[in-house]
């Protein structure tokens, strides 16, 4: 017998505050049944991964989120990233676009091209994808409240280039629930927003069959300060809510469910994060097969994108972020992600420079080609510790689901402020733990340097806003304004009707070069806007 050694005072907890024991053994996973809880990769409940071969077949898609300034500048960055081995595109839009207003709107002042690319109309979208083969590259677009409109712009660009919609691959984030919960980039109230989303599900199933019409996102929930479990539980429950609404609208679950995709955060705690991804697949499998009784096996398979945690990076000693990102990215890969964005070292200061973005990209290439972890599937499967964490993560999900069910679903829970308050509380607890030094953040509350050499950051050219507004005014003066008016009137009619799919009318507005702001104004007039109560 060896005596128990001395231990630091602790607490020994995950980033999310979950207590961790000194050592894990077979005792801790006595309730684990291999066939029922794990099974082999590619087999239900998919805990170990959705494909039998995983990265031995095809590596994950390297998809760096990027966009700034005007469409022309961002297009140049896309060509740069593709040249350096990136395998898919991911568009970051500026805030006016995300909020459905044009670049010359008074609220857009100071925001144009700042945290993403300025897109006001189809004309900008044509420039954004210039020289990019849309039938070969898959594109993810981070847009939520106006997702149906932005997607329509992409579809019309493809149409004009003669690319069959059936060959388009990509994703629109289109997840409004997490906007009310966490990121707060909403326009319309929940109910009409849910209708627009269901319309995209229906349209995509019929006309753009390879497109992921939603990316149900935990990323922003985590960035807002949630725990890993809250991120997982609220995200999967958002998924349940979308399925419920789509079914109520008469859609066949086995037609749209295979196109649902997910998006998770990769925070600092390696094992907690890996457990989260493994539990996600298992819980979703059970939800789809047991709660919704899906028949198509693909309906029950959870595919996800991962982005490393922006909120875990530090402005202090920013080069340390390269190491953090590598560990976080490792969690995503060990958790079986389908695509990955690695943050740049300078993200707490500004949008990334080309140099910083390249290091992010290279981090993924090093993991893929040098680390050896892609040689086998779910290399950590069977670890006493990881399997215990995975089981506990699953159990925690069912507990949250029960509470959310009893509140009448996620839209109701949001209206009562429940997930918002849970996240706020977790964010405060986390901040306090850092200030008490229960959690050490290198360079922030320990190992601090007084004088740090400054690093170069990307400065957004302020003239981008002027150029964007000039282009927008020129467009309004030169397009067929009669056609614009007619298409907007038709859109309003469809929105007022409330029973027809909105996509055909939106596509017509886009084809006429109606601006995003004009289209959203029509919808705002019918649907109203959402104001968050202060919780």
């Amino acid at each position, binding site marked *: 017998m060896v005596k128990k050694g001395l231990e630091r005072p602790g607490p020994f907890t995950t980033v999310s505050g979950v207590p961790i024991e000194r050592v894990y053994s077979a005792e801790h996973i006595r309730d684990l049944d291999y066939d029922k809880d794990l099974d082999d990769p590619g087999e239900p409940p998919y805990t170990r991964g959705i494909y039998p071969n995983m990265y031995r077949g095809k590596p994950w898609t390297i998809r760096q989120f990027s966009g700034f300034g005007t469409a022309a500048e961002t297009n140049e960055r896309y060509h740069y990233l593709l040249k350096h081995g990136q395998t898919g595109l991911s568009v970051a839009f500026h805030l006016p676009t995300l909020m459905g207003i044009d670049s010359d709107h008074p609220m857009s002042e100071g925001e144009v091209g700042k945290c993403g690319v300025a897109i006001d109309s189809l004309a900008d979208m044509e420039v954004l994808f210039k020289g990019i083969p849309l039938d070969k590259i898959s594109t993810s677009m981070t847009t939520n409240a106006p997702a149906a409109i932005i997607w329509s712009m992409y579809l019309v660009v493809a149409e004009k280039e003669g690319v069959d919609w059936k060959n388009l691959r990509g994703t629109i984030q289109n997840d409004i629930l997490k*906007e009310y919960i966490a990121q707060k980039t909403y326009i319309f109230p929940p109910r009409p927003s849910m209708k627009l989303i269901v319309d995209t599900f229906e349209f995509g199933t019929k006309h753009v069959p390879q497109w992921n019409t939603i990316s149900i996102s935990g990323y922003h929930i985590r*960035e807002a300060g949630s725990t890993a479990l809250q991120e997982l539980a609220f995200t999967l429950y958002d998924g349940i809510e979308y399925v419920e609404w789509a079914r109520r609208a008469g859609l066949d679950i086995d037609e749209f469910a295979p196109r649902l995709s997910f998006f998770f955060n990769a925070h600092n705690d390696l094992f907690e994060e890996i457990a989260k991804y493994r539990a996600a697949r298992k819980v979703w499998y059970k939800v789809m097969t047991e709660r919704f009784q899906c028949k198509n096996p693909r309906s029950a398979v959870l595919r996800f994108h991962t982005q490393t945690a922006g909120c875990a990076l530090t402005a202090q000693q920013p080069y340390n972020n390269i190491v953090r990102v590598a560990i976080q990215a490792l969690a995503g890969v060990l958790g079986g992600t389908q695509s990955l964005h690695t943050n740049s070292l300078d993200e707490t200061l500004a949008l990334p420079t080309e140099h910083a973005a390249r290091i992010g990209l290279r981090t993924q290439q090093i993991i893929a080609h040098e680390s050896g972890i892609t040689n086998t599937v779910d290399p950590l499967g069977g670890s006493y510790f990881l399997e215990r964490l995975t089981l506990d993560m699953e159990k925690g999900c069912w507990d949250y689901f029960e509470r959310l069910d009893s509140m009448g679903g996620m839209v109701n829970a949001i209206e009562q402020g429940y997930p918002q308050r849970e996240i706020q509380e977790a964010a405060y607890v986390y901040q306090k733990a850092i200030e008490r030094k229960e959690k050490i953040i290198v360079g922030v509350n320990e190992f601090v340097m007084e004088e740090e050499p400054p690093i170069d950051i990307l400065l957004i050219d302020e003239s981008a806003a002027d150029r964007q507004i000039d282009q927008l005014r020129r467009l309004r003066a030169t397009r067929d304004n009669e056609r614009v008016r007619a298409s907007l009137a038709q859109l309003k009619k469809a929105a007022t009707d409330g029973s027809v799919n909105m996509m055909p009318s939106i596509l017509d507005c886009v084809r006429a070069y109606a601006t995003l702001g004009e289209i959203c104004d029509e919808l705002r007039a019918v649907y109203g806007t959402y104001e968050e109560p202060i919780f």
Partner: protein
Amino acid sequence: MNERLRVLVAKPGLDGHDRGAKVIARAFRDAGFEVIYTGLRQTPEQIVNAALQEDADVVGLSVLSGAHMTLCTRIMELMKKEGLSEVLVVVGGIIPDQDVPKLNALGISEVFQPGASTEDIVKYVREHARKE
């Protein structure tokens, strides 16, 4: 101090990232301050108007979208115009080093960048509010 400090926490611009605003609002409350949170997407006019109506001693602005120079310039102009120059204004968010002196020149007393602790912010506000 006889009366509790009144702090207006505000989110100007289109940015919806309110984690920092909510955390600092709670830290101010826990420190015994009276806190008014404006909610999201306030125009400079709305914020200055709220500071006036609420008789704020302190205005704390949170901006993470990169629009801080435009928004803060406008807010400080309006503060001056409304005779609120004695109100302590502090800013938190994604603010690059090179913008800090520019914000100070506008009359913003202190800029809290990522990693700032709520304790330091509370301490600063306690020491500097109602001093000018």
